[in-house]
């Protein structure tokens, strides 16, 4: 399994043809207490760089962009009842959705952990 990161502070785990998407620890910390998460419908086609989900905190509502294109196969329903999971476990239990990878070449250009850490340190 490989984990990639975007400059919009999403992480993406790739296992075979399936990708799991969430927001990073840095992102949740910047947002503050998450109060609502709007997830894409299963079966929805998302397009790389376009909004796929919405995360709302006490400070602001923000779009979550699809890091790659594909079809949504599963959404993390646990976030509906307990959006705080994004705060307590952003990079594991607080995942947003899974999708089938449309085009593996889109993964090129995403950051690995080391590159993302360096990116965040610059901010």
């Amino acid at each position: 399994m490989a984990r990639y990161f975007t400059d919009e502070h999403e992480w993406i785990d790739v296992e075979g043809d399936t990708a799991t998407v969430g927001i990073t620890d840095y992102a949740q910390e910047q947002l503050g207490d998450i109060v609502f998460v709007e997830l894409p419908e299963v079966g929805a086609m998302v397009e790389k760089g376009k909004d796929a989900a919405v995360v709302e905190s006490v400070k602001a509502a923000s779009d979550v962009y699809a890091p790659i294109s594909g079809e949504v196969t599963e959404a993390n329903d646990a976030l509906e009842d307990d959006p705080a999971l994004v705060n307590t476990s952003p990079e594991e239990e607080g995942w947003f959705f899974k999708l089938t990878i449309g085009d593996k070449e889109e993964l090129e250009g995403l950051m690995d952990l080391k590159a993302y850490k360096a990116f965040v340190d610059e901010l």
Partner: protein
Amino acid sequence: MNPPNKSGWKPAMNATDQDGMHIGPATVSGNRALMLEEPLSFEIGHAEITGVDLPEIDPAAANRLGGLERSDPIGLVGLSEPETVRHYTRLSRQNYAIDLGLFPLGSCTMKHNPRLNEKVARMPGFADVHPLQPVDTVRGALEVINELAHWLIDLTGMHGVAMSPKAGAHGELCGMLCIRAALEARGDARKVVLCPESAHGTNPATAAFAGYETEDIPAGADGRVDLEALKARLGPDVAAVMITNPNTCGLFERDMKAISDAVHEAGGFVYCDGANFNAIVGKVRPGDLGVDAMHINLHKTFSTPHGGGGPGSGPVVLSEALSPYGPLPYTARTKDGVVHLIEEESAESFSEEHFGGVMDSFGRMTAFHGQMGMFTRALTYMLSHGADGLRQVAEDAVLNANYILRSLEDLLHAPYADSGPCMHEALFGDKDFGGDLSTLDLAKGMIDEGYHPMTVFFPLVVHGAMLVEPTETESKAALDQFIASFRSVAERANAGDESLKQAPYYAPRRRLDETQAARKPVLAWNDPNLT
């Protein structure tokens, strides 16, 4: 005696509270002299009490409900008239209002509502009219709408105005529907609307509601729209650009004319969010900057009450290209000097006779003419100020905001302090705060100082944003007092003063759990005796 407030949380009333602050002896009632601790109406009342004398039910009278009468208690609060009056009067004393003090909410323009406006709006000829009255009996009211429309067109240098939208976002929708109608009329299926990152959230929301996809326009380091990036994105798919000017960083978009020219050249339209028009009224005419549609918040720029004090009103001024598509009904004066109300029945024949038949309205935004009560107030404001007075409004609003910016920039991160003078509002960030203190803690500290906090965490382009709009109605003495309080709380924030984390100390309620309130809101009264 039990304290009256059974369900609510209240400040500790003992000699010292949990933070060791001396407060004084506890009172049995929970009141602090004239600071009255007010329970919920459900906690005061008894279901059997009512402010109205209802006749006893005559058991012999025919029951015509057919068995549908309610058999369970309805659970309504029961209060006598004096209890009701006291309850709401007491609650109102815990409220903060523009009539109590400076209200520094950025982007909201919480300015004084002149009493002359109220006097005029209460004149029977304006206050007691009904939109379904025969037109011949409301000629004066139509005259007011038409006169106000004339002023708005003049002040903005535009071609027409739609008076009916009932608030800023409603006006945005009206403007975007005009743009859509104009594009559809020429068979142009453009799909994308561009909005700057610092836009009011309503801009992309409006574009989406009108059926468009939205994309961000990046800002330059100076806080203004990046003209080159915008130009690079323009093309045959861009229907419109929505720009706030002055923008939400409190800056005037100097490239506005160049932006408009580029958008027009690419075949799109320019929507301007006019929420901040108060900073430029009488100084700049948006029509000269190439704007095609702009809403004007009468409840901001033209001093009509808002924020719980009254309804908004968001007329939209339109360019010549968009005017034919504006909503019905509208008023128009004919050559004989009479102001007519143009509705569906009369629109076609009227526009043929007077405008050469080009009127092609997209429809209606509202059932009737718009916010008549706000029209009378706004026109009163304009006529009492005159054109020169309105210009001074803009000048004083900008002067006051700059006074605040320059009085705080040594203490607080002011990201665009080097971008030139600010317009109507000053923007700060939390970069210099010590410890883990945040903008929220500073805002709560301002409550203890007796001020409504400024706008916080908006615009999103600045970390921990604090947006302060003093408006022109504050005196220098009032600003100095506010600045002294703001500086003192900012100094505590910079020093990492942990006591700020507990603020407010002196409000009727201490810090509320906003997260819990958003995650698990309790929106209905649950009688603790029943659960």
